């Protein structure tokens, strides 16, 4: 049924880009990817370059920050955009991933394992996925906004546990977390402390892999089930979609991607403590996903990048004698309102969502 539907609606569902031949699409994608890898050097483009790069914060570091925000946005997009589950505590998974890495690798950890960064990743990912399932199991039966408050509570509990238990060291934190492996031709490690460019490339590579994975999932049976759940959970259930199972899947995959972000972040950061995992962080990522266009990969990427880029870019800009950086979140808040009011479907909406919105607009009740 769904395939037939897909064919008849196919042309309308696809945009200009989607109508191009496969070869053209692949070529464009490859070009975009190459351009993304060249981003650290954007500052050397005359005229435009210096306007793009950040002041006061190193440009490759700002790019790296963007890369893990994008990663988180992609993960949250699976939960919110695809499965339609409102998650206000997504940073919890990021924290679990980062803490697993820290526990396994840092000399400060009570485990005293001091593994290499790379070996800690599979364990961190596995534990975070389990955490996702453990959180989802009892709570996914809740609807909409109840789920939102429970996930928010989950993130707060993670933060409080991280702050208040001795094992997780609270604000004392874990230091000397090893960097990713690899040596350059000059014998120096590729992933040093002074240059963030390799970390950005690493982040970007992971992002590309995640995009490929998520895109395939979205087009599989799982993705279609998510769509059905998002549109009408009861109807989906009646039609034989095992809603609970697929919701749990969405949570686990979201947790997996969040943990990826957490481990890469910990590898760059060298030092982590409980002060980072604030509630505002989750809310910001959610704002990014919806602002960019929830349910659409390109939208999530743009949104994730913007929430990191806008505040960083406002550093070192003066207007009338005051540094705009002090006002960054006020400006940012205003930008969010503006974007949502002008484009409630997001900056780059999924075409399906945009069409739904058009339908909804027609249904507006008389005011």
């Amino acid at each position, binding site marked *: 049924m769904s395939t037939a539907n897909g064919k008849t609606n196919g042309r309308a569902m696809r945009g200009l880009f989607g109508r191009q031949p496969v070869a053209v699409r692949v070529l464009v994608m490859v070009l975009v990817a190459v351009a993304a890898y060249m981003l650290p050097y954007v500052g050397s483009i005359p005229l435009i370059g210096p306007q793009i790069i950040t002041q006061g914060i190193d440009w490759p570091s700002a790019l*790296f920050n963007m890369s893990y925000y994008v990663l988180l946005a992609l993960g949250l997009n699976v939960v919110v955009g695809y499965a339609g589950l409102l998650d206000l505590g997504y940073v919890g998974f990021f924290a679990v991933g980062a803490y697993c890495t820290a526990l396994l690798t840092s000399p400060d950890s009570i485990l005293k394992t001091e593994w290499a960064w790379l070996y800690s990743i599979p364990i961190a990912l596995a534990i975070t996925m389990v955490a996702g399932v453990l959180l989802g199991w009892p709570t996914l039966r809740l609807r909409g906004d109840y789920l939102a408050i429970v996930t928010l509570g989950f993130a707060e509990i993670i933060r409080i546990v991280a702050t208040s238990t001795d094992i997780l060291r609270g604000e004392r934190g874990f230091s000397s977390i090893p960097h990713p492996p690899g040596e350059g031709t000059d014998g120096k490690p590729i992933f040093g402390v002074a240059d963030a460019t390799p970390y950005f490339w690493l982040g970007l590579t992971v992002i590309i892999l995640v995009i490929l994975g998520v895109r395939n999932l979205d087009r599989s049976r799982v993705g279609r089930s998510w769509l059905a759940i998002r549109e009408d959970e009861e109807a989906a259930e009646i039609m034989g979609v095992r809603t609970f199972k697929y919701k749990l899947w969405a949570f686990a995959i979201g947790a997996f991607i969040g943990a990826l972000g957490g481990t890469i972040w910990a590898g760059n950061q060298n030092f982590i403590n409980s002060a980072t995992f604030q509630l505002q962080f989750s809310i910001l990522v959610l704002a990014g996903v919806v602002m960019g266009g929830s349910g659409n990969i390109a939208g999530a990427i743009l949104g994730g990048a913007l929430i990191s880029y806008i505040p960083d870019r406002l550093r070192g800009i003066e207007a009338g004698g005051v540094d705009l950086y002090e006002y960054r979140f006020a400006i940012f808040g205003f930008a969010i309102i503006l974007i949502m009011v*002008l484009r409630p479907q997001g900056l780059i909406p999924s075409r399906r969502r945009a069409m739904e919105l058009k339908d909804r607009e027609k249904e507006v009740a008389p005011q």
Partner: protein
Amino acid sequence: MRQVLARAIGGVAIIGLLAGSAACNKDTSSDTATGSNCGYKLAFFGALTGSAANLGVNISQGFELAINQYNEKKGSTCIEVAKFDSQGAAEVAPGVARSLVADKKIIGIVGPPFSGESEAAMPIFDEAGIPAVSPSATRVSLSSKGWKVFHRAVANDDAQGPAAAAYIKDTLKAEKVFVADDQSAYGAGLADVVKSKLGAAVVASDKTEGDGKQADFSALVQKVQSSGATALFYGGYYTNAGLIRKQLTSAGWKGVLLGGDGMKDPGLSKAAGNASAAGTIVTCPCSPPEAAGDEFNTAFKTKWGVPAGTYSDVAYDAANIFLQGIEAGNTTHEKLNEYLSTVNYKGIANTYKFTSTGELDPTLIKVWAFKFNEAGENVADQEIKIS
């Protein structure tokens, strides 16, 4: 279709707006003065915005004053000031630190003020080899990380805790003490030392959430009251301490609140009210501002319009240590770092000499107790001698 177009234009307009606001950059290029040992930059690294900015601003003002005075004496902009805002946050620090390192003219750093951001930023400074002198990062473990460029112009938490305990025991003669902390690395570390030094005098203890995460302390207040304690030692910062003092007072508790240098800020009395804050004792591994001499205090007040704050004088000294080194021709990172290891500088707040790990020489450590008076100012009470 027209609507779609209008909306697309709207979207583009938003992005344009953001890009436009981004376009008006601060002009960073400026003429560099020539002269012997000139044309270098000294950097301040620490919080200038955000909730932790008070201490950062104190420090950056003292730092900038020293450099301005030096330049005036030279008659040109010999040494430039570069300021880097870390917001005092460990997750922000690395990116900002890397942008500092990228500026090859910077040969010395005053900062980072806080211990958490030091952990995240110092590895980067260490790799770049830029010497740093922190006027206020007191976490004990910082000096044992093997960073060659790390120095601090202040005693670490191991000095302050015993001093606070000695004050409670010898001066206050309190027999029942309640110890609480805000779970920050700084506050919890301090409270643990105080607890172990006071031993049986500690009747009960509690932990609170950090600054900005808790406003209602009624459970803590209740515990303090029913413990019968006559003194409360709080390991934490002035933000929470002001709230706690106010709520203790309005619950009718008459005991004394004590704390470390994190509470030495007029913000405490501003929040709690002068009458309620009066009598609060804070220890600080720093000298009273009067000791810095009128010259510094007047110059500071003239330049910034506010009296010198906690660690302004130490930052002033730290900058002057660097300036003296540069004046003597130590104009590379290596030479300047070498110079720091042998320096013996008598500043306004203290005399500075660093051990091989970058700690302040133990014989030079001073801890003073300060007391909030009825006007809401913290004034020097006495120097604490630890026997």
